[in-house]
């Protein structure tokens, strides 16, 4: 039984609106407060915020995070914010899922979210939704209080709330939210009546909470898109051109159709379009779709195709890296992204100049759940069931392919078996939509692991030459010169920006055809690898302790304004505090046995600061062992410390994996190592035995934790190897240089 708590108010001026969702939940939306008051802290603010909330007569509650889960824990964190402001009893909260994403058109006719920012990416979900979630919760709490006050005929301000009850201050009488909900939902509350809690009054936020759906996960219940069945759907796999830009030369149609269960073959054209970062890229490979009654039959049909391709691609990742080395060492003019102060003068008067070049290969995403999408395109509307990081793009894309109104597209967002930026791409969706539109029947497209690595949008490969000038043991000049497959560094917004006053960053325009895209903290692991390795090299050259050198370098501790889509300032003191805390946990000063060393690395991005200290041992014959790690993070107020620690653990390991193993090789436009085994990936035995994390409470508003822990790991590893054995590694994958 659901509470009969739903009555849409008619007055447009009413602050809070409540209405029934399709599933009967109480849907509460709150208009955006005046933009000026939020502009300073919220970029890309959504027009409004929505929560899915049902209060039951037995006083239990159902909440749903409109942001879907991909391992970033938003399905726990989002509801925590709301529940705390509502003063809900967290032990009686159930987290629901699979509601369609609600969309509207904005003033310009663009499809956007009706009730909030449902995107998962850029470590922005907490930051974007922090204010809205709290206001929504506080508003509902006020409605409940007003209803109780009316019943008891007492002033509302004499009442308090606690654990899903409204009570008087003496605690002599109380009434449950469940009892009040029906009438409370019809009340009007004005913004002036809504009071946000003080931090000291939080009862849910700031404490450890666990993974939503964990019982379903450990019991193996279907949660992911790949587990979904859909009535009358054909299963499709697609044989795609293995090499970039290749076209179909021929295939054995009869053999494929002869496989029992195979129904139909459909050719799909390749597609090139502007793609972030760096201009035109192949976003869809030419392919032959095999549609069958079962996935297994479709896979057998695909084998039987024995497809042949016209391939003219010449892209070779090894040759491209060699070319990047030549470029950064040349005197050729590059594009200047930053040129602060007088870099040439700083180098001319330096005591010491270091000049080192760092290399980074293409990183694959390798989301554990291969991509999949169910599309049911009908004449009157469409249903899409998939895990995608940007659900409104899904609706928009259906409109663009089929001509259907995007608002007639029901998007069911499933839990994602990893996203890492790759599930913000549209290819797997486009394939399913195109096929279903063509055959007028629901289609489920499933990729294999080989498909996933061959057709990845990689984190760009790059070569970075860094020159740094020291005078009186202070860094007086920094010159970063980079060539990469695609994209550019956001050089103004990461250290050493703001701290080194004579600072130049140059890049060579990309010439590669290899598609790149967002990868968990895009291109930032390489940036931190070059920057934090160079800091280490400078410290050793100056005869200083690498930690002390960094702390000295970052002084005076101050906050500098930046103009980044995801952050408004960068604070050298907050960074320094992370270095210090991580080092303290690691017992930095304690001498380690011969062959064992500690390395430190740090990074600021998306408003959050993270540092990592790593302990490794290196034997005389270059056997590398990763021992333990310690980390510190400053992500403002820690809403759920448990999951901040989990992101630090997983993020470091992802960064270590990337630095050690993650290297995709392309030859003649074709990925050479397209499955695990050929593409090595970190296993438990190679991961740190333990990772201890300190969360620094700097009093700032909360920022994201999905990406910031990743970039420091590569440099911490290189620096630890140097401390252990005196060998400086400047090239990833590091496993090419050491045995592990």
């Amino acid at each position: 039984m659901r509470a009969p708590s739903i009555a849409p108010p008619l007055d447009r001026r009413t602050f809070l609106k409540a209405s029934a969702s399709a599933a009967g939940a109480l849907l509460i939306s709150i208009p955006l407060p005046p933009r000026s008051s939020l502009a300073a802290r919220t970029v890309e603010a959504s027009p409004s915020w929505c929560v899915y909330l049902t209060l039951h007569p037995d006083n239990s509650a159902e909440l749903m995070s409109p942001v879907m889960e991909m391992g970033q824990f938003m399905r726990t964190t989002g509801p925590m914010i709301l529940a705390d402001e509502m003063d809900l009893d967290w032990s009686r909260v159930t987290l629901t899922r699979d509601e369609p994403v609600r969309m509207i058109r904005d003033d310009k006719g663009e499809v956007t979210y009706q009730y909030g920012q449902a995107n998962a990416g850029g470590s922005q979900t907490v930051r974007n939704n922090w204010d809205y979630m709290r206001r929504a919760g506080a508003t509902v709490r006020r409605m409940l209080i007003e209803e109780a006050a009316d019943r008891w005929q007492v002033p509302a301000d004499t009442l308090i709330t606690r654990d899903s009850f409204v009570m008087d201050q003496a605690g002599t009488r109380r009434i449950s939210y469940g009892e009040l909900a029906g009438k409370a939902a019809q009340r009007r509350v004005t913004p002036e009546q809504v009071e946000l809690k003080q931090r000291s009054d939080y009862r849910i936020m700031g404490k450890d909470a666990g993974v939503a759906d964990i019982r379903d996960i450990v019991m193996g219940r279907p949660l992911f898109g790949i587990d979904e069945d859909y009535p009358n759907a054909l299963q499709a796999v697609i044989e795609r051109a293995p090499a970039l830009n290749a076209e179909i030369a021929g295939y054995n149609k009869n053999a494929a159709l002869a496989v029992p269960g195979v129904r139909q073959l459909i050719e799909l054209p390749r597609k090139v379009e502007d793609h972030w970062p760096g201009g035109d890229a192949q976003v869809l490979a030419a392919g032959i779709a095999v549609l069958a009654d079962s996935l297994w039959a479709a896979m057998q049909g695909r084998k039987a195709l024995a497809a042949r391709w016209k391939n003219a691609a010449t892209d070779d990742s090894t040759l491209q890296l060699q070319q990047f080395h030549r470029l950064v060492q040349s005197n050729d003019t590059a594009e200047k992204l930053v040129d602060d102060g007088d870099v040439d003068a700083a180098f001319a008067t330096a005591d010491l100049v270091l000049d080192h070049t760092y290399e980074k290969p293409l990183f694959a995403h390798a989301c554990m759940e291969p991509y999949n999408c169910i599309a049911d395109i009908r004449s009157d509307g469409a249903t899409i069931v998939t895990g995608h990081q940007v659900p409104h793009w899904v609706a928009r894309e259906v409109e663009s392919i089929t001509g259907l109104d995007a608002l007639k597209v029901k998007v069911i967002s499933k839990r994602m078996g990893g996203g890492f930026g790759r599930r913000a791409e549209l290819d797997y969706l486009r394939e399913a939509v195109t096929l279903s539109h063509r055959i007028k029947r629901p289609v489920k497209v499933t990729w294999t692991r080989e498909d996933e690595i061959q057709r990845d949008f990689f984190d760009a490969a790059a070569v970075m030459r860094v020159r740094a000038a020291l005078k009186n043991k202070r860094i007086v000049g920094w010159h970063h010169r980079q060539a990469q497959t695609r994209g550019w560094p956001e050089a103004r917004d990461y250290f050493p920006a703001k701290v080194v006053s004579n600072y130049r960053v140059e890049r060579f325009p990309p010439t590669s055809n290899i598609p790149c895209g967002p990868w968990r903290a895009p291109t930032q692991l390489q940036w931190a690898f070059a920057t934090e390795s160079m800091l280490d090299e400078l410290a050793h050259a100056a005869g200083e302790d690498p930690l002390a050198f960094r702390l000295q370098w970052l002084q005076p501790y101050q906050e500098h304004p930046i103009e980044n889509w995801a952050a408004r300032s960068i604070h050298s003191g907050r960074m320094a505090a992370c270095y210090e805390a991580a080092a303290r946990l690691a017992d930095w000063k304690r001498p380690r046995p011969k062959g064992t060393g500690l390395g430190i690395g740090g990074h600021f991005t998306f408003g959050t600061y993270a540092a990592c200290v790593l302990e490794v041992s290196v034997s005389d014959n270059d056997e590398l062992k990763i021992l333990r790690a310690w980390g510190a993070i400053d992500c403002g107020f820690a809403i759920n410390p448990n999951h901040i620690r989990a992101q630090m653990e997983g993020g470091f390991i992802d960064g270590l994996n990337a630095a050690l193993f993650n290297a995709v090789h392309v030859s003649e436009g074709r990925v050479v190592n397209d499955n695990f085994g050929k593409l090595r990936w970190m296993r438990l035995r190679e991961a740190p035995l333990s990772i201890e994390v300190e969360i620094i409470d700097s009093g700032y508003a909360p920022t994201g934790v999905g990406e910031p822990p990743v970039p420091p790991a590569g440099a911490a590893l290189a620096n630890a190897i140097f401390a252990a054995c005196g060998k400086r590694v400047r090239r990833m994958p590091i496993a090419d240089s050491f045995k592990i």
Partner: protein
Amino acid sequence: MPIEFTLNRQPVTAPDAKAEMPLLWFLREDLRLKGTKFGCGIGQCGACTVLSNGSAIRSCVMRVADAKGLSIVTIEGLAGDERHLHPVQQAWIETDVPQCGYCQGGQILAAVALLERSPNPTDTDIDAAMTNLCRCGSYVRIRKAVKAAALRTKTSQRSLRS
């Protein structure tokens, strides 16, 4: 000849036509048991791990024909029911291991097989046995959970004896 084996303590018969099909796809497609996951199809990642007579095996590289006469347990069949989770499942919840969660069914079954063989595993035992990939990097918590499960099993056995 139909292929007979035991699945989650129930007898199962697969038609002979399925003999060459990997067990993974028979489970997922024919029996609609979606807890066993597809990750690589070549026995590398371990997302498709099931128990075969108590040992962890990769069902994407085991033919249905090879399951003949074996007792197969999938993640769906590990617990008796919702209220009686296996100690490893309980340890996974207590340690809050999963991030995206996709690989965790396989990880749990690998841990069950390890603890059957070595009730008190050392870190070296855990390193050797826990070879499934976790893309989110939940390894530190997996290690903790395996140890917590070992402790739980020991405690429950002790309480059974007393």
